Structures are given as C-alpha cells and as structure tokens.
C-alpha cells in the first residue's frame, strides 16, 4: 500500500484522504458493537452516556443490569443469595431459561445440520455427482429465500405436518411439531445447512482425491479411509461450518416467533420482546455478553481457517 516514489503531491493528498475515509468506514463498522459495551454498565436506566460516565465517576457505573438478567422472572429475587436463591435463578429467571433453550436448540440443530451437511458436501464435491448444480442450488436456498417466507411455510407445516400427505390422497393424523423442541431444532437445522455445505465444500476444493485412492490402494476400507484420511483434512471446515450453523440458530428469531411455544423462548426471542417492550440497559447487558461470545467464536474460526490452509498446503500470499 506504500505510495510509489513517482506520486505527485495531489496523489499524496488523495492517498491520505483515502486512508482517512477507510478509517471512517472501519469506525462505522465497529462503533455500534463497541458502543453498547460501556452503556451496559450505566447506573441510570438511560441509553446515553451520563455526565458521570463521561467523567469516569465510578458511581456512574454499575452492574445492576447484569444482575437484573439473573433476577428478572424470579419468584423471590429479594431473598438472601444462598443456594435456594440460585435454584430459583436456575428454574425461573427468564434469561436463564432462554439461555437453556438456546443451547439445547442450537446444539441439536447444529448436530443435524453438520452431519447431513458434511455427508452431502462430500457427495457434492465428487466429480461424478449428477445434477450437481441444481441440487447444490436447492441445498443453499434456505440461506437465500427470505426468512419470512421460510418461517410462514414452516408455521403451517409444523402446525400440521401431515397435511401435505392429503395431496396424494392419504389422510393420516399426526401430532404437531410447532411448539416443540423438535420442531424448532428441525427448522434451525434447515437454516444452518447452507453454511455447513459452503464451508465444507470450500475445504474440499483443495482436497486431493488421490489421497483417498492411495489409502484404498494400501488396503484401507472406505470407513477407515473416511475417518483416518478425509476427516482430519476436512475437520477445520466441518467445525467452522458447525460454528456457523450454531450461530445461525443462536441468532435466529423469526422462525422462533412463528413456530416456537412457551417452552422454547430463546435468547433472541427474549431480546425481541425486550427491544419492542422497553429497551432498558438490560438488553445492552445481553448484547455485551453476546458480543464477547461472538469474539470467541470469531477467534476460533480464524484459527481453524489458518490451520486448514496450512494442512492443505495453501500458503498465504
């Protein structure tokens, strides 16, 4: 990015102006994420920096909004903080319940998406795969189709999963998936699958098929070949795909709004309520925790990507 020696003064000026513009854009990108963090420690129920906060007066800051994440929804929030208080938190606090739901749904939908998605990616990256283009397009489409359309479709289907069977003349009766953990897990798995496919097929692009052949010629059966040769090589891609799928589920609110029942109130659902109801700094406390969570995820993914590039012999230029 260094300026060539023959640059004219005008070009130099433009070059520095350009750097300033870039800095401003980076500022635009990052400032919304950074600004919520100090505000979540606001001692006042406001969204703006109070004068006390700006003068770094400790009394302008507090942990009260983090505390409210535990106490909100509790039966006896004012009881002494012993074992029974924590039991109350564990069973009744709304944000804790939401976290439990989010983790359960996120974990199982990730498992479903990763297993199915990895298998499919292996098939899709074989050169023999028939109708590759159209199938790939279909499997990626949950990422492209507007979420409101997906969610409304799921709303009808999950309320009565047997209805499509009536089109072919059958008339069975079956339970419903809406309002169950299974329903939300399946929905989120569907939404996470494109990410797994994209990341795993990207890893497989550099994959040397002759390695698998070499293993086979040395007497390994397909299972051994898969677990000993293919899996270690594509693992970074699988894990980052899984993380993408998990984040998709962890951040998803529209499908939850349409198909979840009272037991599946996830963190985003709770946030949606909070934002529309009353944007107190408690929402910012949640936001701060989520930002920390995404920093951790991003670090993991970056490390995996580099490891993968190293393993596949792609050196950074």
């Amino acid at each position, binding site marked *: 990015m260094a300026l060539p020696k023959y640059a004219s003064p005008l070009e130099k000026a433009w070059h520095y102006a350009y750097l300033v513009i870039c800095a401003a854009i980076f500022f635009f990108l990052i400032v919304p994420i950074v600004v919520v963090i100090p505000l979540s420690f606001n001692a006042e*129920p406001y*969204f703006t920096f109070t004068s006390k906060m700006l003068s770094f007066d400790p009394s302008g800051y507090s942990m009260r909004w983090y505390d409210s994440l535990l106490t909100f929804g509790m*039966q006896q929030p004012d009881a002494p903080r012993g074992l029974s208080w924590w039991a109350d938190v564990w*069973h009744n606090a709304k944000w804790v*319940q939401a976290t*439990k*739901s989010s*983790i*359960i749904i996120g*974990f*199982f939908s990730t*498992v479903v998406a990763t297993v199915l998605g990895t298998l499919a990616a292996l098939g899709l990256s074989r050169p023999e795969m028939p109708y590759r283009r159209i199938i790939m397009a279909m499997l990626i489409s949950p990422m492209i189709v507007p979420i409101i359309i997906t969610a409304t479709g799921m*709303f*009808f289907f*999950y*309320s*009565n999963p047997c209805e499509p069977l009536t089109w072919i003349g059958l008339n069975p009766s079956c339970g*419903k998936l*809406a*309002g169950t*953990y299974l329903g939300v897990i399946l929905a989120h798995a569907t939404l996470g699958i494109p990410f797994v496919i994209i990341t795993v097929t990207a890893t497989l692009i550099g994959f040397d098929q002759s390695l698998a052949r070499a293993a086979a010629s040395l007497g390994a059966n397909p299972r051994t070949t898969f677990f000993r040769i293919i899996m270690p090589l594509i693992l970074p891609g699988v894990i980052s795909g899984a993380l993408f799928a998990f984040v998709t589920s962890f951040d998803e609110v529209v499908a939850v709004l349409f198909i979840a*029942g*009272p*037991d599946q*109130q996830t963190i985003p659902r709770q946030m949606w*309520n909070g934002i*529309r*109801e*009353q*944007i107190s700094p408690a929402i910012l406390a949640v936001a701060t925790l989520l930002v920390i969570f995404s920093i951790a995820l991003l670090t993991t993914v970056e490390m995996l990507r580099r490891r993968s590039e190293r393993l596949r012999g792609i050196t950074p230029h």
Partner: protein
Amino acid sequence: MKTMLILTTALCGLAVSAQAQNKEVNVVSWGGAYEKSQVEAYNIPFTAKTGIKVNMMAADNPATPLKAQVEAKNITGDVFDIEVSDAIRMCDEGALVQIDPATLPAAPDGTPAKDDFIPGALQDCAVANIFWGTVIAFDKTKFADNPPKTAADFFDTAKFPGKRGLPKNPKRTLYLALIADGVAPDQIYETLSTPEGVDRAFKKLDTIKKDVVWWEAGAQPVQLLADGEVTMATGYNGRFFDAMVAEGKPFEIIWDGQYMDMDMFAIPKGSPNPEAAMEYLKFATDTQQLANQAKWIAYGPSRKSSAALVGKYQDGKTDMGPHMPTNAEHMTTAVMDDPEFWADHSAELSERFNSWLAAG
C-alpha cells in the same frame, strides 16, 4: 468423540429437566408494567397456593396470537388476556371455552359472582379482570407554560410542537381523530358506521401523519415519551401511571376523550392445560386478587366487591382513586368501547388503516 457423547447426554438431561415440571399454565398477556402487576397479584400467590407454574408470555395484543393459533389449530397458550370485542367475536366463532358464572368464586360477603361483577364483565366465554383507559399523556417539561388540555390539542402541532405517539391500530386512533374534530363521544360509532365518517377520521389523521411515531406494544409510548422521541403520546393509562409514580417521570395525563375498555381472561378450546387454565382464571378473578392488582397498576377492578378494597399504591402513599380510569371525573368525555361494532368492523377498518399507513 467422547466429549461429544458426554455433551449430548448432558444436554438431553437439560432438555428433560426443562420439560419435567409438567404442572404449568401458559398465560398470554400484554407485557410491561401490566404483566408485572399480574405476576405480583395473580401468578406468585397462585403458584404458592397450587404449585402450578405460570409461564407468562407477552404480546402486543394477545388476541392476535390467539386468533392465529386457533386458525392454525396449533394452540400453545392456555389463558389469554383479551379485549371484549375479541372475546365476543371468538366466542361467536366457537373458539373459546364457555365459562359458567356459577363456578366463579362468590364475593367475601356471599354475593354470587354474577351479581358481583360489573355489568358486561361476564361474557359467555370470558371474565373481565380490569377496566382500563387509553389516554393522552405529555411531557410536562416540553410544555411548561401552556400545557395541552384536550384531544384537539393533540392534533395541533403548530401550538404544541413535537412528534406524536399513536398506536398502530384503527380502534384507538380513529375515535381520537373524530373527538378532536368535534364529534361528541356518544356519536363516535354512529359516525364511524358511515363511509363519510371514516373518511373524516382519516382526513383528520392526515393532518399529523408525518409527525406520528407509531407504536405497537403498550410499553412503547412510555418509552417514546421518556426518550424524548415524542412530546405527546396516547397509551394505556396504567403504563403512564407506572412511569409517573414508580419511576418519577415528568408526565401528565389528559383524560379528555379517554377510550375505556375491559380486559378479559378467556381460554381457547383445545388448550394444552385446560384444568390448570380454569383454575388460574377462577383464582385471578377472585375479589382479593383483583383488588391486589390495583395496588400495582392504575386499572379499575371488574368486581364491585374489589373496588371497596382498593386503597393505596404499593408504595403506601399514593391514593389510587384519582388515577383510576373509572373515576367519575374522567368519565365525562370518555368513549366506551362498543364490542359489537368492533367485532363486525375491525377487519374492514384495519384493512383501510393499514393501507393508509403503508401509503406513506
């Protein structure tokens, strides 16, 4: 692989434990300060007495998810807190469980429930818990020397500058436009029944359309006023009360042209926990519970026997009487809800309203 297995087992355990408490009832209400009053007055004593866990869900207007759940035959809520017009309409459509007034608890002095409830508070399929008003509130700091006093002032942005907060539905906007345009409170429905009357209301709304911030959830107008996003807003009187008394916000309520309605508990047919739902409904509409709710929010109880028990706000010093929508002084220019009118016309007027809104 092993850690994966352990994780899976642990999560399965979590999933099971999350569903283990099977005695529960799902109540869908309006969120915010109103939800808090119900949690304090109904839910906590109910769980203490029966051991049944109450899951409170918030909706902008619980009738909306109720209708959607009934239509999709996928009912997840047990008790819904809805307006009278919705209760009548859904009862007419056969979606709600009939409630026999004889099974409701009698007043402490032995008056049977059907005589103890205020007329209209008992419907075939629903039991009222509160009377509440939709009122105008303004930020006192913005109009220090010349505060607005009437519904017409709400529409006068020249004299009272600033944005306005209005609910995103026809029921609580059209009447206000007509009142501000000089229609008498008892002529509202007659006017709204004619196309010219509807046009007149929309024309009045047009005059402030560009200055309106629309809200959907009951807590939003309070928030908009507190944030200085608007200078005047209409909202539910209990929410403004909560902001003024509990949080000390500098708001004032204009009672002129308040819109008075009842909220009712109803149970849809096919709800997941019908027995617990009925138990909750009976418990919550008991004399003492209704009176307790008024300790937390300024809404009038629907039982005559409760009214006598209403005294002070939970802080122990604020008299509730002057804050109640049912206070005689506040009733002079009040528009009473007409459930039949809305049961018939809400679909049409909503459509017109939404088109009007989307168009700009």
